[in-house]
């Protein structure tokens, strides 16, 4: 029996506004508990919410970036439930009419193709505070600094059919919200959190019952949690059982998902329009202004990289997957470096080193102009690509300039033809056996001779010249 997986994601992005969505209190992360909550955030009697216009603008930036329908008249509603970190006893959110309607985004698949994932809606809401259960033995501590922080909840269509696609989608949204500067994307601090709705079905059947996995805060966990959940659901169904509609929690330490609450235990949120807030009305002028000020989007940047630089779809997708990486790459290209060689260096050696050391490209020990210098020494034949990798290591470790390293380590390529001929003639004289075989048609042995030359020159011989001279001498 083959199974199909159906996944939809709800992503909560914390918007980068200076103040909260309905009050003037600061949204700065990490302040002392309960110092960034004013009377409005604390839900004092008589206080009223006032909508932060900047949060609306940010939601619109997102809507325009995913080509979504913008609802020119959207409504804030109250989601009613009791919890100590929810001061008013209700969360102000959008229910029936969200500010952003239907949109879509392309995600890259493993096979190099792109897939379109639909976005159902994106709505504005306030975050709750934090309950801290492990600070005191007999009490739960409440920190309301986060209460009222603006969130944009982005809801996808159930268009993803495996954990990898879900991760690709989440990464794509993660990249986009940073490109358009509405979210810092910091997953450790909770600025970007995912809920995954997962169900499985036998091929050809209708949708199965879904479980919602809450509050996943890393891409790695997202992939693991979905895979675990798919496995769990298939096991249940293959044993003849049925999947319960419920909310589950992913435990990254035990690496399992477990039930939080069933559908029957689910709250009746008693949504109704918040009478303290007017409908959000968006006029064409505002929309145009926001559209005009949108930065180049990842999809646009990718198209430009393909058109202007002649990069492959794969390279362009990869390079534009992080704005900082695309910026880094463009600095190198603007200085006149080779397009393809630069792409290989940025996606290869540089990315690998950054990943290994868990450093963001913005904080790379080798700056874009320095990498440009290195690439230039390859293209002007000062050093070979192989030597360049050694130089790169030294630049990374010792923070010295390219030319300094080449000079100090005496790494400059041997380009003197006479000197090379001397080295090569000596090697031929020592390996008459192999010369004989080569002349009898074993042309693979050319590699052996190149290797010997490189060994003798400590890798400094220009490979092109070596090949040329060897071919002359051996034919």
């Amino acid at each position, binding site marked *: 029996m083959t199974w199909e997986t159906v996944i939809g994601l709800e992503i909560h992005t914390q918007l980068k506004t200076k103040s909260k969505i309905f009050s003037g209190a600061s949204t700065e992360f990490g302040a002392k508990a309960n110092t960034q909550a004013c009377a409005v955030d604390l839900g004092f*009697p008589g206080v*009223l919410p006032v909508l932060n216009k900047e949060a609306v603008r940010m939601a619109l930036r997102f809507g325009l970036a995913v080509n979504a329908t913008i609802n020119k008249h959207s409504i804030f509603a109250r989601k009613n439930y009791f919890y100590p970190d929810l001061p008013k006893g209700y969360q102000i959110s959008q229910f029936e009419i969200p500010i952003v309607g239907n949109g879509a985004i392309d995600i890259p698949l493993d096979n190099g193709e792109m897939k379109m994932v639909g976005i159902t809606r994106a709505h504005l809401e306030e975050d709750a505070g934090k309950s801290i259960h492990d600070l005191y033995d007999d009490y739960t501590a409440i920190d309301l600094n986060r209460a009222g922080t603006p969130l944009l909840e982005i809801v996808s269509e159930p268009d993803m059919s495996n954990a990898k696609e879900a991760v690709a989608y989440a990464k794509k949204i993660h990249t986009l919200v940073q490109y358009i500067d509405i979210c810092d994307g910091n997953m450790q601090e909770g600025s970007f959190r995912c809920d995954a709705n997962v169900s499985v079905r036998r091929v050809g059947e209708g949708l199965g019952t879904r479980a919602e996995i809450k509050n996943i805060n890393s891409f790695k966990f997202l992939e693991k949690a979905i895979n675990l959940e798919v496995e769990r659901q298939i096991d249940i169904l293959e044993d003849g059982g049925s999947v319960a509609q419920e909310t589950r929690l992913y435990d990254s330490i035990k690496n399992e998902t477990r039930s939080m609450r069933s559908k029957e235990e689910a709250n009746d949120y008693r949504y*109704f329009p918040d*009478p*303290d807030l007017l409908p959000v009305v968006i006029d064409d002028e505002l929309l145009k202004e926001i559209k005009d000020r949108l930065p180049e989007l990842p999809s646009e940047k990718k198209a430009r990289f393909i058109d202007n630089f002649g990069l492959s779809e794969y390279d362009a997708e990869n390079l534009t997957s992080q704005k900082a990486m695309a910026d880094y790459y463009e600095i190198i290209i603007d200085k006149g470096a080779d397009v393809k060689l630069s792409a290989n260096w940025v996606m290869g050696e540089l990315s690998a080193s950054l990943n290994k050391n868990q450093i963001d490209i913005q904080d790379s020990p080798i700056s874009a102009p320095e990498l440009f210098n290195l690439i230039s020494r390859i293209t002007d034949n000062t050093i070979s690509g192989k030597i360049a990798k050694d130089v790169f290591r030294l630049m990374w470790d010792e923070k010295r300039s390219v030319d300094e390293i080449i000079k100090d380590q005496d790494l400059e390529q041997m380009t003197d033809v006479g000197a090379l001929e001397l080295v090569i003639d000596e090697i031929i004289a020592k390996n008459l056996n192999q010369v004989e075989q080569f002349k009898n048609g074993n042309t693979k042995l050319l590699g052996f001779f190149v290797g010997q030359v490189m060994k003798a020159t400590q890798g400094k011989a220009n490979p092109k010249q070596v090949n040329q001279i060897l071919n002359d001498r051996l034919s």
Partner: protein
Amino acid sequence: MMHNLSVAGLIKGLKNKDFSSVELTQHYLNRINKSKLNAFISVTEDLALAQANAADLKIAKGDNTLLTGIPYAHKDIFCTKGVKTSAGSKMLDSFISPYDATLSHKFNSENMVMLGKTNMDEFAMGSSNENSYYGPVKNPWNLKKIPGGSSGGSAAAVASRIAPFATGTDTGGSIRQPASLCGITGLKPTYGRISRYGMIAYASSLDQAGPMTQTAEDAAIVLNAMAGFDNKDSTSAPKETPDYTKQLTNSLDGLKIGLPKEFFSSGLDEGTEKVVMNAIKEYELMGAKIQEVSLPNSMHAIPTYYIVAPCECSSNLSRFDGVRYGYRCEDPKDLDDLYLRSRSEGFGKEVKRRIMIGAYALSAGYYDAYYLKAQKVRQLISEDFKKAFQSVDVIMGPVSPTPAFDLGSVKDPVSMYLADIYTLSVNLAGLPGMSIPAGFSKELPVGLQLIGNHWSEELLLNTAHQFQLKTDWHTSSPIEL
């Protein structure tokens, strides 16, 4: 005696140095101390005298506004920094507000003098003031009678001249009905005219503050100090406020008055109807034209209101959970116990009833049948008024079907709700409405209700003031203190 002076009279007296603000304040405080009406929850004697002293200094320097030094009573629903703000509830008996309502701030910045916080039905839910945690207020015209509600303390205080004026709030008649039953002037302005920031919410889409005064002229003077856009209240109107005293003297010759036929049907007390019809005759003598109008959906106002208001209150009152402030039960076992007992013990019966009605009406499966339907009817009620105002300038009728009834006599909540029949539709439509003293029935005051189109406060005040120039109902005051 100075306590018989209107606010306009007190302003003159302060200006002529007939008395100082401290003298005036002390005089009212003495009267409050003698009062048996239970009109106040808190009397802020020390604060009042300090404010009066500061006001006198301002006046001496000529650095005063019109209302500087004028004492007033503040309904205990408005947050007052450093002063207990209870909303008439055990839930907030220990609550000292850390901030000022916009209205409190406005009055403070004019150096007005707050005598204290007035008694009210718990969270403004009630029509008789019997739902207060602090006990009922008595009607100064007859101590066995209710003063009306929910702003019963404010109405009784102004009627018994223990405060020159008071603030009130009106969600379904809570200014107009007690004003009518106590024989004073009460104005509920258009929804959005006065900031709701810091006014403890009952039903947000209906709540509106307003002045409770002896005269229409006073209402205009006080409204000037209360009205205006507030950027802390998204539902307050970004609309210029006129000087409400400017149109008071206009002639009413040719004014078109509409009498809704639905307001004069069965259930209306005979004496009350007579008072209202006599008042209408007075207007005819002033040159007004009387015609019948119809508000066919007004009969649905009670069920509509008692869905919309409880729905909103069930959510508005969720914040009173025993976690951050207010009443908390003894030794809660766990979180559910904390919520359950704090709210069961902290709220009174009527408040709990409305929270339950609202939570029920909003719950899944019932929302469409109750909340949504009520919103649709609310729209129809609005449209009735819109249509009526195409042919008339002001609508008039009774405020309450009967004069004040006996304390403790109405036990069935639905019978109590029926007393709001003439006032609710005005709130549902967001319109301004007034009650002005128009006579007596069974030796108890009866008010005449004036209803205007949106933002027509100037016309309403003008219409009321002209009546008060021709009659003296508004100057009669009870003997009881």
